[in-house]
C-alpha cells in the first residue's frame, strides 16, 4: 500500500556544517513520516543512523538535532513543542529534551522539519535562518552573555517575528546539564543538549519562516481545530488548573509524600504552602505566558523580590519548585524564583541544578566538601548557598568544575559514601517525584530512555489511584505511558491538555489525517512510539557498556533508606520488589532478561537494521 503525505510536513532537512561553514537542504526521507512520525522520532532515527558508537558527545562528530512534528504549528491546542536531541554528554547514551514556545512552527514555516548542526565552528557564531537564507555570523560579544540578556539583544536586532534558541555561559562552558533556552525562560533542559550546542560554538539559532504549512485538508483542519479549542474551553480544568499551571500539583505531591526534600532524604517539605501554585499566582506572577496555540498557558512570568534582590523570570514551574525549592529547602516563593532566574540566565537545567546543589550541600554537611574548597559554608534553606554553587558550576570555577559534571561523576570523585545520595539514573539527575512509595513511578524513572526523567511516564497518579503497596499491573501501566506520552513528542505537540484538563485523545487521531493525509488509528500511532522507544534503547545499548538491567536502578538511598518522615514515612521499594517490576516490564516489552530488545522484537517493529547491529 503506498500512501502519500499531503501535509503537516515542510518536507526538508536543513543541515549546517559548522566546520566548513556551509549548509545544504535535503528532502525528508520518504519513509520517515510513516515509520517515525516526526519530532522525537526523527531525532532518534537521525542520531541512530549518523552518530556512531565511540563518538565523543562534545566532539565535532556528535550532531545536535532540532525537529518539529507534523502537528507543530497547526491550529490545535498546544502546537508549539520542539524536540532537541544529541548523543548525551550526561549519560553517553541517547539524549533528547523538548521545549515549548514558538520554535518548531517557525522552523516549519521556514521550510524545514529538521535542523541538524554538524561539526564544530572555529569561532563562536550564531546561525540565522530566514526562510531560504541561512547564514553563520560571528557571535561577537553575545558569547558570555546570559540567556535573557542575549535573547533580548537578538530580538531587538532581528525583530519580534524571529524566534531564538540559545545557550548561556553554562552551555559555553560545557556544563553537563546546560540547557537550550527560548522565549525568555523556556528550556530544553535535560541530557546536556546545551553543552552539545556549546561544544559546536553556536551561541544562538535565530529563525523566521513566512511560508504556509501545507495541510491535506485546510478547511477540515480549521473546523476541527476550532472544535478542539471549544472542547478545552468546556473542561472544568480549563479554569481550575490554568491559573496555577504545573505548580498546582505542589500541594498534592506533598500530601502524598512524594516531594523531593533535602536532597531526596525525605519526601515531605513542611513549608510547601509557601512555594505552591497559590503563592506563585498571588505573590509574584506578572503575566501568563503561553506556547504557540495553547489555551491553558502553564507559563507564569514572575517578578521575584528575594533576599538577594529582584529578578524577572518565567516560572517557577513545578519541577523547579521541587528541585530548587523542596530539594534545596528554599521555603519562600521569591527565593525559589530567584534561584530559577539564576539558572535561566546562566543556562543551567533547574532540575539537575537543584539536584547538584542539594548534593553539594549534603556533602558539605557530612564533611566531604570543605568551606575552603567551596568558598563558603553551605546549608539547606539558604538561597546564598544555592546561588553560589550555581555560579561556580556555570563558570566551572573551583569545585564548580567537578560539580558541572553532574552528581554521578562528582560522587565518583568525592568518594566515601556519596554515591549513595547522588540521586540519578544512568548519570541523569532525578526529577520532581520521590518514588520510594510509588512502584510504577520508580519503574518509570529507572527505565526512562534518557535517565531519571518523569515525562516518559508520569505514573504516580496511577499508583495513588489503584494502591501504592501493590506491584500488580504497574509494569503494564508504565509501558502504556511510555508509548503514550512520548507520542506527543513525535507529533510535535504538548501533552498537558490531555494530562491536566482531561482533553480527549481521540481528537488527535481524528485530526491527524486532515493534516497529513495519512489515516492512522491511535493504536497505530502508539505502535510507532514503541518503535522509537526500542530504537533509543538500542542506540544507548550500542554506545554505553552495560546499558540494560545493571543500569536500570535507583541510587542506594532509595533502596536502603526508608522514608524518614511525612505521609510516606517508613516506605521503601526493596531490591527484590524492584527486580519483580523489571522482570515483568522486560517481559511485556519483549526484551531479554538483561533488558535489551530481542532480535525478534526489533524485527517485528520494523527495525531489522537495528536488530542486525545489535545481534548480528
Amino acid at each position, binding site marked *: 500500500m503506498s500512501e502519500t503525505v499531503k501535509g503537516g510536513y515542510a518536507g526538508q532537512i536543513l543541515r549546517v556544517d559548522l566546520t566548513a561553514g556551509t549548509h545544504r537542504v535535503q528532502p525528508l526521507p520518504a519513509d520517515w513520516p510513516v515509520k517515525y512520525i516526526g519530532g522525537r522520532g526523527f531525532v532518534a532515527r537521525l542520531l541512530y543512523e549518523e552518530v556512531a558508537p565511540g563518538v565523543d558527545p562534545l566532539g565535532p562528530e556528535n550532531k545536535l538535532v532540532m525537529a518539529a512534528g507534523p502537528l507543530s*504549528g*497547526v*491550529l490545535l491546542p498546544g502546537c*508549539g513543542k520542539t524536540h532537541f536531541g544529541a548523543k548525551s554528554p550526561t549519560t553517553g547514551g541517547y539524549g533528547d529534551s523538548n521545549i515549548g514556545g*514558538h520554535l518548531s*512552527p517557525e522552523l516549519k*514555516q521556514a521550510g524545514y522539519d529538521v535542523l541538524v548542526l554538524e561539526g564544530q565552528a572555529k569561532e563562536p557564531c550564531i546561525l540565522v535562518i530566514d526562510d531560504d537564507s541561512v547564514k553563520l555570523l560571528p557571535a561577537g560579544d553575545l558569547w558570555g552573555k546570559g540567556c*535573557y*540578556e542575549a*535573547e*533580548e539583544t537578538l*530580538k531587538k536586532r532581528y525583530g*519580534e*517575528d524571529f524566534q531564538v534558541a540559545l545557550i548561556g555561559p553554562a552551555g559555553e562552558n560545557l556544563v553537563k546539564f546546560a540547557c537550550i533556552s527560548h*522565549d*525568555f525562560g523556556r528550556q530544553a533542559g535535560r541530557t546536556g543538549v546545551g553543552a552539545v550546542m556549546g561544544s559546536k560554538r553556536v551561541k544562538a539559532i535565530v529563525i523566521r*519562516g*513566512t*511560508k*504556509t*504549512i501545507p*495541510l491535506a485538508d*485546510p*478547511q477540515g*483542519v*480549521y473546523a476541527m*481545530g*476550532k472544535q478542539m*479549542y471549544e472542547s*478545552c*474551553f*468546556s473542561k*472544568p480544568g*480549563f*479554569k*481550575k488548573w*490554568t*491559573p496555577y499551571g504545573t505548580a498546582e500539583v505542589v500541594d498534592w505531591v506533598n500530601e502524598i509524600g512524594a516531594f523531593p526534600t533535602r536532597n531526596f532524604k525525605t519526601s515531605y517539605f513542611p513549608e510547601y504552602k509557601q512555594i505552591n501554585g497559590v503563592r506563585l*499566582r*498571588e505573590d509574584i*506572577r*506578572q*503575566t*501568563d*505566558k*503561553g*506556547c*504557540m*496555540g*495553547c*489555551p*491553558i*498557558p502553564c*507559563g507564569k*512570568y*514572575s*517578578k521575584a523580590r528575594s533576599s538577594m534582590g529582584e529578578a*524577572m523570570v518565567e516560572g517557577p514551574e513545578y519541577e523547579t519548585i521541587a528541585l530548587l525549592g523542596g530539594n534545596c529547602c528554599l521555603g519562600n516563593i521569591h527565593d525559589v524564583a530567584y534561584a530559577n532566574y539564576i539558572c535561566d540566565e546562566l543556562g543551567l537545567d533547574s532540575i539537575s541544578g537543584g539536584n547538584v546543589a542539594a548534593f553539594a550541600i549534603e556533602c558539605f554537611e557530612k564533611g566531604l566538601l570543605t568551606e575552603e574548597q567551596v568558598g563558603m559554608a553551605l546549608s539547606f534553606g539558604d538561597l546564598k548557598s544555592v546561588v553560589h554553587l550555581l555560579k561556580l558550576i556555570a563558570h566551572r570555577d573551583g569545585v564548580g568544575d567537578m560539580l558541572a559534571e553532574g552528581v554521578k561523576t562528582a560522587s565518583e570523585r568525592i568518594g566515601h559514601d556519596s554515591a549513595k545520595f547522588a540521586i540519578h539514573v544512568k548519570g541523569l539527575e532525578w526529577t520532581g517525584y520521590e518514588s520510594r512509595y510509588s512502584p510504577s513511578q520508580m519503574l518509570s524513572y529507572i527505565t526512562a530512555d534518557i535517565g531519571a526523567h518523569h515525562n516518559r511516564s508520569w505514573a504516580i497518579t496511577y499508583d495513588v489511584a489503584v494502591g501504592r503497596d501493590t506491584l500488580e499491573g504497574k509494569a503494564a501501566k508504565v509501558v502504556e505511558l511510555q508509548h503514550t506520552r512520548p507520542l506527543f513528542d513525535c507529533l510535535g505537540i504538548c501533552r498537558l491538555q490531555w494530562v491536566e484538563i482531561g482533553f480527549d485523545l481521540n481528537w488527535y487521531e481524528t485530526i491527524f489525517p486532515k493534516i497529513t493525509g495519512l489515516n492512522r488509528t491511535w493504536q497505530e500511532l502508539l505502535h510507532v512510539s514503541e518503535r522509537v522507544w526500542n530504537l533509543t534503547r538500542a542506540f544507548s545499548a550500542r554506545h554505553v557498556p552495560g546499558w540494560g538491567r545493571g543500569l536500570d536502578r535507583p541510587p542506594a538511598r532509595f533502596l536502603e533508606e526508608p522514608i524518614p518522615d511525612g505521609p510516606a514515612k517508613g516506605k521503601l521499594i526493596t531490591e527484590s520488589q524492584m527486580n519483580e517490576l523489571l522482570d515483568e516490564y522486560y517481559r511485556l516489552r519483549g526484551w531479554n532478561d538483561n533488558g535489551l530488545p530481542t532480535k525478534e522484537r526489533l524485527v517485528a517493529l520494523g527495525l531489522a537494521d537495528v536488530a542486525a547491529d545489535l545481534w548480528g
Partner: protein
Amino acid sequence: MRLATKDDLCSGCRTCQLVCALQNHGANNPKFATIRIIGHFPKPGAYEVQVCDECGICRDVCPVEAIYDVNGHLEIDRSLCTGCQACVAACPKGVIAMHATWESPFKCVHCGACAEYCPTGAIYDGDLYTPEQAWRITRDEMIERAKAGGDGNE
C-alpha cells in the same frame, strides 16, 4: 463587531493569528494575520495586542482611493489596489498584512474569529462587552471561580 483588546489577559499564544489566517486565507500561516502580538521581555514582562481599530489612516494615505467603507468597515478594493503598500507603512498599529506571495495587502475584515477563539479573552467584541464583562479568564476572577468550583465560562 468591533475588535477590542485587553493586553494584560494576553498570554502570547498566537491562537488568534492561526485562526485569522485560516478564516481569511484558508492557510495555516500566522504571518498572514492582521493581528500583532508583541512581547515585552524580559522587562516589564507583558504582552501587547494590536488589532485594527478602523482609524482610517490607510484610507487617507491610499494614492488610488482603493480603501473605502463597505458595510461599516474599511476594505481594500483589489481591483483598484496597485500594491504600493503605502497603507502597510502608514498603519499605526502595524496590522495591515503583506506577504511576498501576494499582489495586494490584506486588511482586517472584522470577522471576529480571533475574538471567538482567543483562549483568555484578550481580544473580544467591543460592541457586545465592556472590558470587565469580556473576561473569560481574569487574574482574580479566575481564582475565585476555580475555588468556587464553577465553570465560569459565560
